[in-house]
């Protein structure tokens, strides 16, 4: 039942990007002021209301709404990060490992890059391989500077680029409900996965 929704969203994303390439954006209404497309109503606090577009490590262009239908464990990072980001990915893997297999298959893990300049889809794919992240169940995304700033604001993640081009950032894992609402946040690195795992299990009991 969800598949058509996902496909439509993906197609919308692709169609949109092709108009961009043909340069017909001059008269387009900026995202702030477009009327929201009617469709399945999303909860008032859903992150899936965001209009921003993101590119995956497989060059798929999506809106975040394409992630709906499954609980998400979401974190922000950048691939040339030497310290905190591998740890935050490991924290996510620990959560995945602690979930019963039948639940794990129904949870998606999403990593979003701060580094709109250097993190191309190729870099994201290399990061996926380096970190040993399976193709299924893990989504890696990059976006434009403003969109990254906006998503970070919603996730309560603070960051700034330092003089070396590295990103100083706070570390937060966010659990989103299938409709895109923040239901839980794990703040800091090397935290026990227990609480987040419990929150995810609760989503499946409901």
């Amino acid at each position, binding site marked *: 039942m969800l598949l058509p929704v996902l496909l439509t969203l993906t197609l919308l994303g692709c169609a949109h990007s092709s108009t961009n390439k043909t340069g017909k954006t001059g008269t387009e209404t900026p995202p702030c002021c477009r009327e929201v497309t009617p469709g399945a109503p999303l909860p008032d*606090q859903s992150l899936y209301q965001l209009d921003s577009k993101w590119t995956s490590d497989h060059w798929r262009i999506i809106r975040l709404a394409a992630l709906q239908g499954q609980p998400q464990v979401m974190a922000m990072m950048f691939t040339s990060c030497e310290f905190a980001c591998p740890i935050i990915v490991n924290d996510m893997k620990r959560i995945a490992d602690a979930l019963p297999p039948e639940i794990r298959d129904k949870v998606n893990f999403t990593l979003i890059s701060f580094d709109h300049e250097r993190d191309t889809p190729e870099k994201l794919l290399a990061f996926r391989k380096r970190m040993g992240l399976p193709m299924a169940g893990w989504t890696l995304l990059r976006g434009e500077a*403003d969109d990254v700033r906006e998503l970070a604001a919603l996730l309560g993640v603070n960051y700034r680029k330092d003089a*070396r081009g590295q990103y100083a950032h706070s570390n937060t894992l966010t659990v989103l409900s299938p409709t895109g609402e923040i239901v839980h946040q794990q703040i800091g690195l090397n935290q026990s996965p227990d609480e987040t795992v419990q929150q995810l299990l609760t989503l499946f009991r409901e």
Partner: protein
Amino acid sequence: MSLRLLILMLVAMAGRIVSGADTTAAPEAPAGMVAVPAGEHRPLFVLPNEPKTIPVARFALDKFPVTNGDFLEFVSANPRWRRSAVKRLFADQNYLKHWSGDLKLNDAAQTNQPVVWISWFAAKAFAQWKGKRLPTVAEWEYVAAASPTRVDGDKDPEFQRALRHWYSTPSPSELPRVGAGLPNCFGIFDLHGLVWEWTSDFNSSIMTGDARGDTGLDRQLFCGAGSAGAKDTANFPAFMRYGFRSSLKAAYTIHNLGFRCAKDL
């Protein structure tokens, strides 16, 4: 006196028209904005090995904060940003609570008062609608450091005294209209003394309350900056702004928090 001023302005305008023919001339600021020359911002806190200053390129900044009148035009043209339509994700329940309706100000006086009770998202959408953007912290702080007489306002004791007075005085329940005070030396009004203002990267300070939950290792990497020390511990207003920005969330709306727009030149 006013005639002399008029002549001066005409001469200046004529100069601009002539220089406009020159393709190398720097672009002018749009109406209602001021072209701010390139400069630098000295952040209150810097990370270890970070330069002490952030360069700011030439840009345009609104002369005044956005008013309720301006914002009314915006919500009239964009129904999704009306009080009754806005999504809670983008603005909390107090959004535009000082108006008497979706498209109705409380009284005529509000027209020229700075708009407040607006979220970062709403401010950003307004800016986008105008073909502008919000200023960065570096841009805002660089411009706001200027006193009525000099760019380096920290060397103007009278200005510093006035700042400390405002930052330690609660906002009045009835806000004054915009542009009532003195402009700073760039010709920009109300950066202090009226309302606080949103910036595009308000969430760029990395010593937030969140750091409490961070591990020792993390603190070592990022929060060491806390002990790197502020550049000027006497700059009480800058500390207040820093603390205030750190406490904000993007959907918050507050009685004395407004904004103005910037634009690349």
